[in-house]
């Protein structure tokens, strides 16, 4: 039930949806980690591989938009930081790789 002011009169309904979305996000963590892991391997061979950099950025971009909105602020902020750095070409891969590894570790923790 929603009133005209936009406040849910049944906050439990929204909480229920958020719980479901968090669960979906958690179950997607393994797949997201695999995308990042594959791109990271490619970047070990060629640190300027544009396709691999784009894959890292895209995944981080998606995580940044979603995770922060469903209560995983730390993961969202970390992904956003990587997204912005890669977008603005602020750093070379070596400068951003530790952050990506940290993000992958967090995703792994969530998946387990």
């Amino acid at each position, binding site marked *: 039930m*929603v*009133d*005209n*002011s*936009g406040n*849910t009169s049944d906050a439990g309904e*929204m909480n229920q*949806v*958020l719980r479901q*979305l968090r669960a*979906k*996000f958690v179950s*997607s963590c393994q797949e997201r980690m695999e995308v990042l892991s594959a791109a990271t391997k490619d970047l070990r061979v060629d640190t300027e591989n544009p396709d691999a950099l784009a894959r890292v950025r*895209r995944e981080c*971009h*998606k995580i*940044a*938009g*979603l*995770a*922060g*909105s*469903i209560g995983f*602020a730390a993961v*969202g902020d970390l992904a*956003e930081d990587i*997204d*912005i750095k890669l*977008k*603005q070409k602020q750093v070379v891969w070596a400068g951003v790789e530790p952050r990506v590894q940290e993000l992958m570790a967090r995703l792994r923790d969530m998946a387990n």
Partner: protein
Amino acid sequence: MKILVVDDDPIFCELISAELAACGFKEVHAVNSGAAAISSVRESSNPFECILLDIDMPGMDGIELCRLLRAEPSTTGLPIVMVTARSEIESVDKAFAAGATDYLTKPIDRRELQGRMTMASGMARERAARKAVLVQNTSTNTLPFEEPFQLQIDLSCMDYLALQNYVLKLGAMRMFSYIAIAFQVINARQLYQTLDNSGFRDTMSDVAEVIAEALVINDAIVSYVGSGFFVALAKRIPEVSVEEIANQIEMKLQTLNDWYSDLDQMPVLVKIGSPGARGIVNLSAATEILDTALQNTKESTTVLGGYSPENSKCI
């Protein structure tokens, strides 16, 4: 309000649908690509009233999709709200140029979403009301004289509410790189009284085109404010000479007025004001530059379009 959400992430689509429902907007249809969005718009028997677009999508991005939706008959005047991550904030400029009316940032903040959607809902209601009135009677002037409307020229024009949103987005610092110049068709009321809806809209669109052409090297965006007033937001560099712009507009208006004369339509007479600009240190709202430009036009005495005592009766 029937809303179309376009985002390549299905979980995000679910989230924003739930957040919209929590804000009171329950009729939400979500798709995951630009192509699916175009299909939905074309196939929907009950038209959408507002669209939320993710900017960064694989394949067709949100900006390209926005441009295409502006060309679709059923979505041409709809509020389009861009949804963007902070890393894409610079892309919002392009989105506004492609026809977006507003934007909001990810992660989603419900208060921000509520505010943006309330504004979009107002735009959609206003559009629906105007459309209903126009369908009832296209021959009389049911278009309110005082209110802004969408000009019928290319993408160098913008709805006035969208222009205000754009200026707010640019913010105080970036507005230093822009100036606002306002124009007034001083015989707009007489034109409004003698032309039908479409004639008045066409005439104001002609004037907008003249203004946009005169300011083309400054990438100006022209917006119709209502009551015969226009505001152009132009880049400050290359330096804008009001005298040079006035000369160009005068020349183009003469051609336009000769054409109107052949159609037995009264000429348009246009006042140009001095530009509104912001200093680097300015604590007022960024949109004040638009108000300043409009005020300058009211105080201006420069009239273009072949003004003479003979045609002064047009005013």
